């Protein structure tokens, strides 16, 4: 960034910690951006003359006589149509070798949409994956994370969902992406010929973790530009939010804040909500949908990060390795799309809700039968039928490699009910059984 004439420059640091420096300065405003010894930093605390700055790259090697230059404004992004197809770092600077983007300068982390001006989300986003479309239908304007263990192919699933979704722009916010994953996304988007509708903000594992804190706001500022100004349907992908939260805890720790659960800052809920709540259906047709990834520690959803996330997002998609079929499935018990009620049976067939619930309930019966089997008990005829059903259900509907239209998912459901159960065992409304059932 270039130095401007009116910028104030200071050269004496009062204190240095691993993530922050303190300098005596006048006329500094809260949240303002600065450079410390050439590294970007942001004002996080003012106390009298003392200004504390968070240095994104870390403070290794910063001398007490470093030059501190205040910019007089918070972090910003230049927005215009030219953003499309470009790759940026956490500061919004191009990393694809192209020229900087010209456009209107917008401060990131801007205000919230007035809840009264929002519209109720109502557009189904089909993905072809039955674990999503059938059981946990996505709706535009929704915010939903994948809960996955680090060894699961969440980035691949997310890329697949993004490319199949019918949206105008896809914005990738990559936090702590491995270089391999970054290249995977780049390659996948390129080979799908979709690059012109994709914008990426990427912080890889090679870069300092605190920088990640800027990624979601950068991505969402771009998203708001396209959704609000251009009335476009925008899909934002955020991966991995657990690494984002880890960066938050690093900063709060360095600022001597009292940690709450799992050494996370007490404001974790609000910090995450500020990001996820940017998902919106706007009155003029534009929308922002957020699909995120929260990696779990061995499936533990009671940890503060997935726990707070679950309270904020509109459901979660839980990836699990199914030992019966050897496939990765979308766990029907732990997954949920809170907005599915807005579209199922309305934009899909009337039997959607009952087929979905019955299929899951029978799958639960199978889980009980499995426990019985493991405990060495005899299985009833019903138990055995449940187990057979579960295997086929998992294979044909829950697995993430499924790619069929919703109608076909429903037909498959009825086919399985007819194959393994009596109509009474399904407990479905009689009228629907008559109309769609596959019993003789």
């Amino acid at each position: 960034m270039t130095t401007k004439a009116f910028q104030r420059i200071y050269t004496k640091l009062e204190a240095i910690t691993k993530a922050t420096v303190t300098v005596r300065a006048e006329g500094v405003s809260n949240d303002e951006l600065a450079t410390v010894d050439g590294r970007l930093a942001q004002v996080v605390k003012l106390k009298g003359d003392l200004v504390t700055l968070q240095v994104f790259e870390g403070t290794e090697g910063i001398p007490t006589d470093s030059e501190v230059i205040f910019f007089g404004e918070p972090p910003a992004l230049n927005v215009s149509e030219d953003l499309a197809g470009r790759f940026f770092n956490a500061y919004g600077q191009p990393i694809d070798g192209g020229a900087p983007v010209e456009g209107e300068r917008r401060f990131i982390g801007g205000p919230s949409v007035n809840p009264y001006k929002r519209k109720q989300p109502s557009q189904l986003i089909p993905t072809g994956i039955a674990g999503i479309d059938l059981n946990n239908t996505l709706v535009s304007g929704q915010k939903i994370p994948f809960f996955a263990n680090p060894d699961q192919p969440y980035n691949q699933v997310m890329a697949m969902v993004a490319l199949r979704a019918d949206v105008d722009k896809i914005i990738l916010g990559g936090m702590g992406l491995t270089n391999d994953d970054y290249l995977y996304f780049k390659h996948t988007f390129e080979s799908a010929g979709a690059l012109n509708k994709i914008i990426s903000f990427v912080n890889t594992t090679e870069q300092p973790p605190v920088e990640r804190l800027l990624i979601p706001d950068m991505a969402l500022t771009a998203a708001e530009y396209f959704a609000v100004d251009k009335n476009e349907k925008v899909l934002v992908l955020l991966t991995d939010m657990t690494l984002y939260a880890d960066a938050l805890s690093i900063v709060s720790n360095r600022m001597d804040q009292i940690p709450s659960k799992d050494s996370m800052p007490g404001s974790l809920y609000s910090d995450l909500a500020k990001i996820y709540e940017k998902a919106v259906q706007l009155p003029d047709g534009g929308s922002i949908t957020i699909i995120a990834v929260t990696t779990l520690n061995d499936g533990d959803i009671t940890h503060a990060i997935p726990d707070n996330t679950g309270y904020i997002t509109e459901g979660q998609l839980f990836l699990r390795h199914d030992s019966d079929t050897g496939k990765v499935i979308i766990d029907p018990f732990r997954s949920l799309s809170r907005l599915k009620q807005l579209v199922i049976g309305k934009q899909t067939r009337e039997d959607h809700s009952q087929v979905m619930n019955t299929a899951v309930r029978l799958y639960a019966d199978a889980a009980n039968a499995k426990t019985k089997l493991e405990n060495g008990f005899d299985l009833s005829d019903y138990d055995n039928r449940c187990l057979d059903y579960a295997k086929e259900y998992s294979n044909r509907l829950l697995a993430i490699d499924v790619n069929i239209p919703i109608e076909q998912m429903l037909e498959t459901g009825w086919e399985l009910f007819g194959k393994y159960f009596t109509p009474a065992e399904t407990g479905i409304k009689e009228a629907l059984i008559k109309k769609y059932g596959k019993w003789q």
Partner: protein
Amino acid sequence: MDQSQKTTGIVTGIISNLVTVEVNGPVSQNEICYIYLGETKLMSEVIKVTGNKASVQVYESTRGLKKGDKVEFEGHMLEVELGPGLLSSNYDGLQNNLATMEDVFLKRGEYTSAIDKDKKWDFTPCAKAGDKVYASYWLGEIKEGWLPHKIMVPFSFTGEYTIKSIVAAGSYRACDTIAVLTDANGDEHIVTMIQKWPVKVAITAYKEKPRPYRVMETGVRCIDTFNPIAEGGTGFIPGPFGCGKTVLQHAIAKQGEADVIVMAACGERANEVVEIFTEFPELIDPHTGRSLMERTTIICNTSNMPVAAREASVYTAMTICEYYRSMGLRVLLLADSTSRWAQALREMSNRMEELPGADAFPVDLSSTISNFYARAGVVTLYNGESGAVTFIGTVSPAGGNLKEPVTESTKKAARCFYALSQNRADKKRYPAVDPIDSYSKYLEYPEIVDYLKSKVSPDWVEKVLEAKNLVLRGKEAYEQINILGDDGVPVSYHERYWKSELIDFIILQQDAFDSIDCSTPFERQEFMLTKVLQVCDTPRNFEGFEECTKFYKEVINIFKQMNYSEYKSESFYNYIEQIDKYTRNDN
């Protein structure tokens, strides 16, 4: 207050939304002040004073604030405006009207008026000149929708007053003078339709607060039948995410037997509020046949709105409830979620570097929560009428673990406990209210038992207790079956288990998205419980557990079909016939 008397100050420190202000005069705890950011005024509240330094929490983003920025103190605490037009309005936590804001985005420092002061209302006086009056005295009435809205002597008036003059029946603006009162010293006071009240102070202008003695019907069977909540009672719904807290709350809001509903969306998802905005105007109140929105006020401070205003939002909502209660109305307050409010307290306490209590929450969390719950209740007004505020809050326990400070503190304060269970939610048994862990203390109140006897049926409470017992015994049997295996236990264990399943599937589970099953009036609940218990109480001889399982599965299936049919319709009676036939034949 006179402009010249106002205390002013300058900003000396900023950490996030905690700002330190050096003041030049007296300030009081919880006083409201405005920080000037250029032309924009940011509303803030004093939360601590040390010497001439006041710590204030800013209800807005503090981005761009500088040391030396000016602050002006207002001389009063956070107040709300009370008057006609509150119903069907949508406010933020500070009572700004969200509907009258222009921009799609919330603008910092944009404060809109809560009540349309120029709107005209047809006023009918019910007091006359010369009457002796006091705070909360009904001077007259206007119609707000279909509700009689009393115009009262403001709650802030102390002592006795005499009405000097009162306007005749006619159409007046909300801000017009309705009456002139004279106090003991002969000073005159003007009363309009609008009054102000500080939200953190409970309105206590009533004669007494008796124990709750009526049940509030919600149409939700697992509440009404199993653990009823009293009108003027308190309850809370803790549960991990995804267990259906919000769906349950919305069901109560739609069907609850109350004159006025206030919903405080405190730190929760914006789309949930949008759902209310979108659906409520379309829905019909089952008790009056009017649009649901007409009796609803929404206080909405969603999770992305400024944290400090979250705390204010629950108090704003409660104050509005107390206002309507003083008119002799039955009010239901739903707050989703009180945990977010507690977290807002925690964030602030943390920034002030206070010594933390458990899980870094402030040490006075428990007393703050119980003080708040204590503002609910039935009251007898001075004129002999009664009103009630029923309060149901949700709690979002971290990690779904009920042994955390907010749940534990709330448990001490609330009388009904509706525990949502992850296990039930995983099995899609909704509402996921655990029938064994949940309780209603009101079932122990003799006045409530008497009320249920006369309202539902003389042996109702015995039936409920029997059903509860069956569920408990069924759970024990289920555990035995799991340990010993299907063949390892007598058939009677299976029978016990399946009786509890029958009650679970037919009484406890309810489809909130089915137009008929979503709401069950008491009459139908009584019918269903009697019918279910009749099946349970009939002795049967099963050859083996498989026969028992098959029998109950079929019974459950027919009952379920019945739940989806309109009460006392042809198909309803058909299913009863089927049940009678099936359960008799097998005898």
